[in-house]
């Protein structure tokens, strides 16, 4: 009895899948399921994309399902792929996390499809494994750098720093004026990593071979002078007392409010937080600008870029559904797709699809981020170039930024942390 009861829903669902499978014929509707994480920006982009697609293709119905984000979401994606129960189309990270879902075994390549040619050259390697491309971007690129209050900068007659020394000089002037120069919010531990991760453009500009050596276990954060600078900067901010006094208990939301109201002047952050500022301080959104984390050399000043998530097709999607899914992918990789997404959520940087332009009314932060892309002064963050990323960087950088440990200890701890990840991935040389 129990067995029958357990099998029954499967039989039923198999029936309905079968009847939908025959929908390749003219006149019938195909319905596809799209799984997306529950972060408001991603969800709204996906919903709006689905809506705009349905309007153009009335015979296809797209239902959007949500999943939790973070590690819980990672496990859910891996489990559903492994048990052949994935939705027809799903959204997931690109770069090192994408490598971990074993794309060659679980995903359908789209390399030969015509719309892949519309994707930006910088994006394609992020969703390509072994010569096969698997994904189409959902959402816009984003930058990791410093959000700054332009009113404070104007009042004090400061200009955007192009070297770290200028950044510190600016910060000292801001401090003398009684405004918090650098906002740090360690209650949300992930926010502590920006000074290290966002410095990567400077590392790769000074040392183009770093990624290769790092992935091969030859370059280390503690011993490589360029890579080490991120940790040094974190310690310096604390040593010079440039942080807000409540750095240990402040949250991201509070940090953004401090920045918007001018109580704090600079906040090392990702440009994704635009929607957060829009919610808490909509009137001050355009007072806030963005600049890349400066390094030692003004000539190579540029942005560390993060790539948007991508839409992937699991191997389990076949027949009429696969055709419908590919139509949706083609739509997402077209200017019409970008327009639909921009309607739903504020872009945080450029769209990585050829022919897409940003709406003219985007916030200043987006314009500032996009300018680095236009100039070509950007490199992808390390996590998009190397699969080796330690999971404890947030706590390690909280320790360095709070003065619990110094930069050297922090960098050494992070090197040990990355070793575990590399061994877990079975990389050679570790």
């Amino acid at each position, binding site marked *: 009895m129990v067995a029958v009861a357990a099998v029954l829903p499967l039989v039923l669902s198999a029936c309905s899948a079968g009847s939908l499978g025959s929908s390749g014929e003219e006149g019938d509707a195909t319905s596809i399921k799209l799984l997306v994480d529950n972060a408001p920006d991603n969800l709204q982009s996906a919903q709006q994309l689905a809506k705009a697609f349905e309007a153009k293709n009335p015979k296809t119905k797209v239902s959007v399902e949500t999943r939790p984000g973070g590690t819980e979401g990672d496990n859910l994606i891996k489990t559903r792929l492994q048990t052949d129960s994935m939705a027809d189309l799903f959204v997931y990270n690109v770069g090192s996390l994408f490598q971990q879902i074993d794309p060659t075994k679980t995903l359908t390549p789209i390399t030969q499809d015509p719309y892949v040619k519309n994707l930006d050259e910088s994006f394609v390697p992020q969703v390509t494994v072994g010569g096969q491309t698997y994904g189409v971007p959902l959402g816009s690129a984003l930058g990791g750098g410093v959000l700054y209050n332009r009113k404070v900068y104007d009042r004090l007659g400061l200009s955007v720093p192009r070297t770290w020394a200028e950044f510190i000089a600016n910060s000292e002037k801001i401090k003398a004026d009684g405004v918090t120069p650098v906002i740090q919010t360690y209650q949300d531990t992930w926010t502590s990593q920006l000074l290290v991760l966002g410095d990567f453009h400077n590392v790769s500009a000074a040392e183009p071979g770093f990624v290769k050596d790092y992935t091969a276990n030859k370059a280390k954060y503690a011993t490589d002078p360029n890579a080490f600078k991120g940790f040094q900067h974190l310690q310096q901010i604390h040593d010079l007392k440039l942080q807000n006094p409540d750095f240990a208990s402040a949250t991201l939301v509070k940090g953004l409010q401090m920045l918007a109201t001018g109580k704090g002047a600079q906040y090392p952050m990702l440009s994704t937080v635009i929607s957060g500022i829009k919610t808490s301080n909509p009137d001050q959104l355009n007072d806030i600008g963005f600049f890349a984390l400066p390094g030692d050399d003004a000539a190579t000043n540029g942005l560390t870029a993060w790539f948007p998530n991508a839409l992937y097709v699991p191997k389990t999607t076949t027949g009429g559904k696969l055709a419908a899914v590919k139509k949706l992918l083609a739509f997402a990789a077209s200017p019409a797709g970008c327009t639909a997404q921009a309607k739903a959520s504020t872009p945080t940087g450029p769209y990585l699809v050829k022919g897409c332009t940003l709406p003219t009314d985007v916030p200043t932060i987006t314009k500032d981020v996009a300018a680095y892309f236009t100039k070509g002064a950007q490199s992808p963050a390390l996590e998009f170039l190397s699969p080796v990323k330690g*999971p404890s960087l947030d706590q390690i950088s909280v320790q360095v930024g709070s003065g619990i440990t110094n930069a050297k200890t922090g960098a050494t701890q992070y090197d040990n942390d990355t070793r575990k990840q590399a061994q877990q991935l079975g990389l050679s040389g570790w």
Partner: protein
Amino acid sequence: MTTVAPTPPKTTERAPTPVRARRAHGTHSSYPTWFYLPAAVIYGALFLIPTLASFYFSLTRWTIFKSTFIGLDNYTAFFQEPALVKGFVNTFLYAIVTSGLKVVLGLFLGILLTSQIRARGYLRSAVFFPVLVSTVGVGITFTAFMDPSTGAINKALSAIGVDGPGWLTDPSLALFSVALVDVWKGVGLATVIYIAGIVSIPDEYHEAAKLDGANAWQLLRNVVLPLSWPATSTVIILSLIGGLRSFDLIWAMTRGGPGFSSDVVASVIYKQYQAGFYGLSTAGNVILFLVVTAVIVPLSRFLARKEVQR
């Protein structure tokens, strides 16, 4: 008549054998062994097999897709974990502080709430109430209370002119702040155990001690304490096990932070799992299992030996 006399000893001599035989036989006949089967299957499938499998998987590098045997590498890696040494020290500190305070406060409250005081029933419920509240809820609430600048505790302190510390943000204080909340939440259970222990002490002991002219302290020291020893040992064992494997409250309040300063073994293990190092976190669980066993088994033997006969 004389022939009757030897019969009773014979029967008493013989009696144990049929009883023993009947008992042994009885378990066999009225409850067939296969009656155990459903329970054994559940216990085996949900406990024994996973436990044994975890010993194996702790020796592998395990992803969700495959596992590779790597010998003791996970254990080496786990012991090199920067947070781990700190985590071990913190685990023991936390367990000792919480169980110590629970014993002292539980005993005090137990004595208070068994004495003739006003509103005793109400006070008993009030003391027990925190036990019923969800741990994560308590954690989130106290995190808000303990916020250094906007929290209720420091606002109250500043009203009387004291500059309150960063309860959860000062690395040297964070663990103790969480331990205090744990005591607040758990002392109700300890109190109830003590109330039961104290109430079950027969009145004769009190009367006899009073007749001998014992004062309140002597009564406590020589009657209540030794005779409520089973309660004390239960409280110690329960709160020590709870403290050693404590996780939920710490995770809800500090996530092991700031940095690694309030990490305990369980939170280190959880972080490894979260990062996808399944083999490594399984190795951590095996270590935790061994450590808890190594502490609790001798301790419970020792405590059982100290129990007095009434």
